[in-house]
């Protein structure tokens, strides 16, 4: 997309879609992976499931669900960061009046 420097588009909209998607999904994937490793090194998913009252949950299920729960959390956080990084619309010029 060609834009002039005066373009009113917020800069994020000029990023390639792939970069916008990647900036949410990819860092969150990496941190979710790291969090999963650390968390399940300390806690055994089978024991956690027993404590929570869900016997019969396999370790593989625990790891998988744990990873995706972490990913959901971290992706939400990344998406919110991107959302709040967007420039706010410029404030409407205040109405100045000479009548007062």
């Amino acid at each position, binding site marked *: *997309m*060609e834009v002039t*420097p005066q373009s009113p588009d917020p800069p994020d909209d000029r990023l390639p879609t792939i*970069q916008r998607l990647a900036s949410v999904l990819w860092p969150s994937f990496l941190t979710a992976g790291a969090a999963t490793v650390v968390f399940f090194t300390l806690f055994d998913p089978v024991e956690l499931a027993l404590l929570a009252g869900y016997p019969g949950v396999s370790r593989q*299920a625990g790891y998988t669900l744990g990873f995706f729960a972490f990913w959901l959390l971290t992706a939400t956080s990344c998406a919110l960061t991107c959302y709040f990084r967007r420039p706010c619309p410029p404030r409407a010029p205040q109405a100045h009046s000479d009548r007062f």
Partner: protein
Amino acid sequence: MSLPKPQTDAPPPEPVELYQKHVKIYPREVTGRFARLRTLTLGVLLGLYYGLAWLQWDGQQLLLFDLPARKFHVFGLTFWPQDFFYLAVILIIAALSLFFFTALAGRLWCGYACPQTVWTEIFLVMERWIEGNSRARLKLDQGPVSGRRLRLKTAKHALWLAFSLWTGFTFVGYFTPIRELSQQLIQFQLTPWEIFWILFYGFATYGNAGFLREQVCIYMCPYARFQSAMFDRDTMIISYDERRGDPRGARRRNAAKPAGLGDCIDCTLCVQACPTGIDIRDGLQYQCIGCAACIDVCDDVMAKMGYAPGLIRYTTENAIAGTATRLLRPRVIAYALLLSVLTGALIWGLWQRIPLEVDIMRDRSALYHRTDEGLVENVYHLKIINMSENDQIYDVSVEGIAGLQLLMNDPQVTVAHGSVADVPLRVRADPSELAAGSNSLTFHIRAIGDPKIRLDQPARFIGPAQ
């Protein structure tokens, strides 16, 4: 109505292209010494990935991060979640080696060893095999939809998908024993989670190596963004020798070099060969993954023109500028020192590692009992984890208070390798030897067959509070 145009010589403001739209890249086929080196590393690395999972050691998969059993088997050693420390040190060593090699040799990792590069390359090999070289592929993609195009695309994607699924299967095979996994696969007895991860990883391979390719390096790779922090003017990079090449210009072959022109004949083969679609002649760019394809094509052209090779070459910024390159510099020495200290510490730690873990839990249902003889008794549970490779017999003893009695079913506990034994036991003490309330004692757990495997574990003994 149109406004009269102001009469100025200034051109109208050019639209600024801030972000390039993604254009599919058809990297040109390259032959040459670096291409051969890349093919070699590609073969070795892919062979390691698909082969290592099948190798056994002592009846045990050589490399198995056995998640269902919470044990890592690495070249004959077994790691437990308690050994997380070693994993952390190994990861730090890996990161430091990356810094070290980047400072010395630039993006060797990206060009030759990164999984993204390796799998993109093998997917390109398959693509070439079915659809032909880059020009044929471009023609095919731009041409009309035809039966031939449909057939070729179907064949390519089928091959890619099969390869991706095999990749996903091998990946899961590093986390659940691959021989059992293949049995389950043949008998259609994979668990839903195994199927899910095979598909997930297979799909990631298909997408990353088949479609995203250089975009992963440019938009997703954190290393590509921060590697410049490890670079200095003595780091080995791939660079175009501007002083020799410029001014560029086309010329006839076998003719004398036209006056006023450098060695670059502006054939743009270096651009056509680049898998990330950059022009190396524009200088060092973070999109350059250091694959050296441009070196190979340029050397070919130089040979055809009768010029010396190396117009594009591995060099350093200092060398290009005509100053000496220093190999040993503070940054390199610091990385090397840190690396050797940590590696030494890891080897020492593994050498000293005692493959035994003991948890002592005091029975909390009662603080203490009184026996008929008037002794004070505490009940404990010993959890003995045999992390060694052999079955062990452990001798359990206790000391710390005079006249302690240890009551167990059998003072020698047999624990199979890789197993956990839960041992209930009772300790009795004469109340006259006890301080009021809490007392310290120490359990000694010794493997009978191996004097190196022993642990002293402190515990509390609770007596009457008078």
